[in-house]
């Protein structure tokens, strides 16, 4: 009888010498060597973050259109619902249940104030035209803002850039055109980003660890979306598991990403919630597999075990 007899549940057969510690040590050395070699040979995907300045420079009309959306309440952020805004009419739901609605607003964002007017206000003391436009917006009715917004949006669709400035058909846009043009100009020279950093009470903060408002603004535009699509990262391009160029991404998210490639995952307005539920059920099935009769018998039918244990079965 060996020293390890009885230590393996369900096995009273022969044992053989084994060095677990040496195996582990060798494994660490081998894995570390492989990883270091891969890092030396290939590096890793690196693409610097997109800035508001780049956006304003590369596609000022898209930034202008997005800014208008924040101001007239039509942007994705302004209409998102919980956790950002109180209007939960567009929140995803399944069988009448909306976890987002139940959770409520936990990251409050007033798109017009927090993304546009608050940051612009920091420039108002030295810009009377801007200060007047901000005051005019804040004293305007939602009806007027909506009407100006519709007219200005139509003009932006045919806007041009001349000498670095946005040129639109003259019209009655209230203070919207002034506000939008200031955002694009300030973003292009890099000064809007600093004003947009999150702070308590709407004032710019000193430290920046929360990029929510900057990112929601950027993500509201078509420019950012197009960059991702060009890089093959969109949702219908297996984006959840994909990454830049030919680099391996988070390929282990394949079982999650696959559901977005065909209906209803690719078409439903409730796709994220639906797929989260599907993945929850599948994950539960895997985690609790040993307790599920019938299902726990399936893997054995592959015959893979005969390949692994053929020596011991002879």
């Amino acid at each position: 009888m060996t020293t390890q007899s009885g230590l393996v549940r369900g096995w009273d057969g022969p044992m053989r010498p084994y060095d677990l510690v040496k195996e582990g040590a060798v494994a660490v050395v081998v894995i570390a060597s492989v990883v270091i070699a891969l890092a030396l040979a290939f590096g890793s995907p690196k693409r610097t973050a997109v800035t508001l300045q780049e956006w304003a420079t590369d596609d000022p009309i898209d930034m202008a259109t997005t800014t208008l959306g924040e101001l007239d309440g039509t942007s994705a952020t302004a209409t998102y619902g919980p956790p950002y805004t109180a209007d939960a009419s567009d929140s995803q739901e399944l069988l009448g249940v909306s976890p987002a609605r139940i959770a409520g607003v936990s990251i409050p964002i007033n798109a017009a104030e927090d993304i546009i007017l608050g940051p612009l206000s920091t420039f108002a003391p030295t810009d009377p035209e801007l200060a007047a436009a901000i005051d005019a917006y804040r004293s305007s009715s939602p009806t007027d803002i909506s009407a100006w917004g519709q007219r200005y949006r139509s003009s932006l669709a045919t806007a041009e850039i001349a000498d670095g400035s946005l040129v639109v058909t003259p019209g009655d846009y209230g203070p919207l055109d002034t506000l939008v043009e200031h955002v694009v100009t300030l973003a292009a020279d890099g000064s809007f980003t600093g004003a947009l950093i999150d702070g308590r009470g709407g004032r710019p903060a000193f430290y920046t660890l929360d990029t929510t408002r900057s990112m929601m603004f950027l993500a509201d535009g078509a420019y950012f979306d197009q960059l991702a699509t060009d890089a093959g990262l969109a949702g219908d391009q297996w984006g959840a598991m994909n990454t830049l160029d030919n680099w391996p991404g988070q390929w282990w998210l394949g079982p999650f990403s696959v559901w977005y490639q065909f209906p209803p995952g690719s078409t439903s307005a409730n796709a994220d919630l639906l797929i989260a539920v599907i993945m929850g059920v599948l994950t539960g099935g895997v985690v609790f597999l040993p307790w599920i009769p019938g299902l726990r018998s399936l893997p054995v039918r592959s015959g893979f075990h005969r390949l692994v244990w053929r020596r011991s079965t002879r």
Partner: protein
Amino acid sequence: MTDVAGSNWTTVLRRRIERERLVDRLLADEQPVYVRSWVYLFGVGTVASLVVLIFSGVVLAMGGPNWHHTSSVGEFVDSVHWWGVQVFFASLALHAVAQLLLATWRGGRRITWLLGALAFVVAVPTALTGFLSQQNFESQWIASQAKDAVDAVGLGWLMNPFDVGRMVTFHVVLLPLVLVSLVALHVVWVRRHGVCPPLERAEEAP
């Protein structure tokens, strides 16, 4: 010295460990003869990858989350950590599929399976928060997409992918604590019951 049975937790724990011969099991220098297939390398490969991730992660933490943007050494260590993630999940996926096809929850090893599966589940957000901590274009895009899934299930209050500070602390502190704990418990349970015998020798059918 009088020992009132069950009243001294230390005594109870020590006697449990002695009764189970836990030290002998943890540091066993013998294995059943069926432990000789290449399949048994995937588990130790996963643990070894995790060790490499922890070491490279500690070095990255010392440099801070911006280090890889400002230093070539930082960039290299970041690449080591990045490839470590790829090798970790490759080993983990092979290990998980192999254990699934071998039905190694047999013979009273269901908790072993549960702990390993939970570790796999926790590893996914651990990696995700790492990608979110990179502060590059990829981070921006992943964050903008992840928020929709997180918000749809009502967890926006718990995990805001745009809050870089929070994602870094999730990735460096919170999730590794949970992951390493689950992996450690999983390994203890594997050693506690021993490697699952071949199907024809199992105590119970799957």
